[in-house]
């Protein structure tokens, strides 16, 4: 080697500060990411140990009976119906706000997203207390569709904004009509977004408990929850098919190729269609949707609150404490999810190799772990291995962090995708160390994603019921558990203030998210496995 060096190099003073190469170039973050992935997937391992210790006899006994078939049919039929309806509603509303000259567009974008701030069990409660006869598949489908369509609306609206209108213009110029252009060009462009949204809707439906308990529709999740109160081994055995079903849904998203998802910055805004005579019907339809999804449930909650003031004393004594608990748990859970998601989002920031991408994809799996399963696995872990943690708030926060980690990751990755590593390179070339560059260049770039991730996880945590019921320490009440306790006792009036408070807490992050997505700079997408 040395004989190839020119004299000037040989004459140089013993080369100073020559570092060992390639050490630390992202290795540390991969190691950290790996640890986080193991942590996130631990509920699966715990579930396997739990089910195994229950014994095959128990599993066989619980699974292979007529009731399991009924539960499976119920769950699958409901999930398919809700996903189909939510997809239709989500795409239709996104088309209205993104591609038509809708008056007061900004207001509609917020109103259409707001239903995610209303817990599904509160919606179920509103319908059930108003129309007690409403129950079963129809009621469950209605409530879940109204509560989950924003999960399709948000990514589809973002995808429509991102897709280059020149493609549609080209289709028109080639003689294709409106319908043909929508079916052949627009729909394929937003297909990935629709799929991603539907997967979220399906997973939410599969893991929902409160709503189905209220409208008396049995699914795997309600059965697991009920079994847990009598026989925890049967519950863990039943969790196995539940998780398999959810993983199957998640896998569907990975199978559909996402070749349409090229990230191009549209050269200009799309030409919005004039609604003309369709204006009145469109506005009517949107108003009906908003009336059903927001006005009706909030109205009923307010109605029950007003009722209770005439009849009984409001059971609002614990409202302040419960609000505080909900707030603090959700804030801590959201912070934990974001802190965990940050290193994982950076794993493929500099080098996007196949193993690194696989590591990242693997961390989406908790999306398929219903709250009840995460909670059960943590209860199993605490009672079996770490009894001092049993019945502590810590466990609940861990559950929130694991369950909602993928949502935080989606948001931060969307920001990371727009913060090219080249910027960090320039920072380094200006003589700043990696830490300074991270703090002053990379982190500010990721900030929108971090904040959005925080809002999203907070929103889901504050409206979460199942894991909260199972993990909240005895004597600690949150808004969700208090609402649930009162409405289970048919004290609808007493439950109302708690429901309203949840909506109030969740509304602010929901509005922030809606406006954020609408600005168009920020476009998270459910990454395929």
């Amino acid at each position, binding site marked *: 080697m040395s004989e190839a060096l020119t004299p000037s190099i040989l004459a*140089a003073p013993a080369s100073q*500060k*020559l570092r060992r190469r390639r050490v630390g170039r992202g290795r540390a973050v991969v190691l950290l990411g790996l640890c986080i992935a193991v942590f996130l997937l631990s509920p699966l391992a715990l579930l396997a140990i739990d089910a195994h210790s229950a014994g095959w006899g128990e599993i066989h006994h619980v699974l292979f009976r007529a009731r399991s078939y009924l539960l499976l049919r119920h769950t699958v039929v409901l999930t398919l119906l809700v996903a189909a309806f939510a997809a239709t509603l989500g795409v239709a509303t996104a088309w209205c706000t993104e591609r038509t000259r809708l008056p007061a567009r900004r207001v509609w974008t917020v109103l259409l997203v707001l239903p995610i701030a209303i817990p599904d069990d509160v919606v179920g409660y509103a319908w059930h207390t108003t129309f007690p006869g409403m129950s079963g598949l129809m009621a469950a489908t209605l409530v879940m569709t109204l509560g989950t369509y924003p999960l399709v609306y948000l990514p589809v609206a973002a995808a429509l904004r991102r897709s280059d209108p020149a493609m549609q213009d080209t289709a028109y110029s080639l003689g294709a009509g409106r319908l043909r252009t929508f079916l052949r060009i627009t729909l394929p462009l937003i297909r990935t977004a629709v799929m991603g949204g539907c997967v979220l809707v399906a997973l939410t439906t599969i893991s929902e408990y409160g709503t189905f308990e209220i409208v008396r529709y049995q699914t795997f999740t309600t059965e697991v929850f009920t079994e847990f109160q009598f026989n925890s081994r049967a519950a863990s055995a039943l969790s196995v098919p539940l998780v398999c079903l959810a993983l199957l849904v998640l896998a569907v998203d990975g199978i559909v190729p996402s070749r349409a998802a090229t990230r191009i910055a549209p050269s200009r805004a799309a030409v919005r269609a004039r609604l003309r005579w369709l204006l009145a019907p469109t506005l009517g339809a949107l108003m009906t949707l908003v009336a059903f999804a927001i006005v009706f449930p909030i109205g009923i909650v307010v109605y029950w609150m007003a009722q209770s003031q005439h009849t009984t004393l409001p059971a609002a004594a614990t409202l302040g404490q419960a609000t505080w608990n909900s707030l603090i748990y959700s804030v801590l859970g959201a912070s934990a999810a974001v802190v965990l998601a940050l290193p994982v989002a950076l794993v493929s920031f500099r080098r996007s190799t196949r193993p690194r991408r696989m590591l990242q994809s693997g961390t989406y799996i908790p999306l398929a772990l219903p709250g009840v399963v995460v909670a059960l696995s943590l209860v199993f872990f605490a009672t079996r291995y770490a009894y001092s943690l049993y019945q502590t708030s810590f466990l609940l926060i861990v559950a929130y962090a694991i369950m909602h980690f993928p949502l935080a990751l989606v948001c931060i990755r969307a920001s990371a995708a727009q913060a090219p590593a080249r910027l960090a390179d320039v920072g380094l*070339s200006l003589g700043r160390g990696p830490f300074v560059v991270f703090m002053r260049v990379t982190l500010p770039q990721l900030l929108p994603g971090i904040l959005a991730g925080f809002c999203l996880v907070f929103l889901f945590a504050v409206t979460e019921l199942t894991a909260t019921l199972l993990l909240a320490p005895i004597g600690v009440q949150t808004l969700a558990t208090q609402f649930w306790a009162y409405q289970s006792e048919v004290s609808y009036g007493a439950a109302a203030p708690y429901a309203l408070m949840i909506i109030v807490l969740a509304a602010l992050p929901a509005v922030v998210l809606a406006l954020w997505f609408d600005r168009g700079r920020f476009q998270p997408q459910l990454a395929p496995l």
Partner: protein
Amino acid sequence: MSTIELLGVCKSFGATRVLSDVELTVPAGSITAVLGASGSGKTTMLRLIAGFEQLDSGSIAIAGRLLDDGQRSVRPQQRGVGYVPQDGALFPHLTALGNIGFGLARKDRERATRRLLELVGLEGLERRYPHELSGGQQQRVALARALAIEPSVVLLDEPFSSLDASLRAELGRDVARILRAAATTSVLVTHDQNEALALADQIAVLEDGRVVARDDPRSLYRDPPDLLAAGSIGEANVLMGERHGARARCALGDIALRTNGHRQPDGPARLLLRPEQLTLHLQATAEATRATVLELRYHGHDGLAHVVLEHPNRETVLARVSGELVLERGQEVWVQASGPAHAWTN
């Protein structure tokens, strides 16, 4: 003085060989343009000098200081190498002032950045964010930011590629002037031969990960070391010929050769004639060869005529003609060549 020396530099990404055995010396204080098609390894070469990537083998040294020898490598933040990436890559959350001052200590920041803004001609825009600046202004800020750390070397990665043609030429001249005023050693990567010819003191031609030619622009254009280099800079007519001594016979007649004092064997050779060396006549002239017009590419101030020579070889040549001249396809013309030509004996 900050001479950059690359010796036997090899770099692969996976199975793809990007640079193989690159040898290049960039003299201190000069502007060297690295010219090559996309995928020729230009950007990788810059990233290696900046320290964003590490060598597989070979060595890189600046001012005699060894930076990377294929085993060990100095970190980019310790190299003092200014880097201006393709589209500027300004930090979007910082103002022009914040961008330029990024690499400076807090106490010098204000004064130094104002001086730099003046140097790049952007006084008064210090509070603007990158999205409030035009493409050319962004590039000026990116250059000022790179110069702020008083680097021994400035690397520019196709800095003008996203600008429109008129702005490009103007900014190019400005940047060259600023770099010369700052007396830094600069490497400018480009795929635009006109840019390279106009701005650089030295041009290195990169093809398939190798430096195939390296010289000052004038010599490289007139006197390329081989046909590959001849074709990569400017338009080139290559004709088959027969060499005898200091002259050669080809389809355009008997032409003088540039020998540069070297003696080359007689025999079949390939001759290089630039389009400026060919003159078109509309009437038959002594010592001119008859030809048929294929196409006239009109450039406004001048044009480039493609003609087929009436010679058994049926070779096509390009001749630069006045913009006033109008030629029809199939029209008969007479081509006269003025030497000296460059010849390579086969």
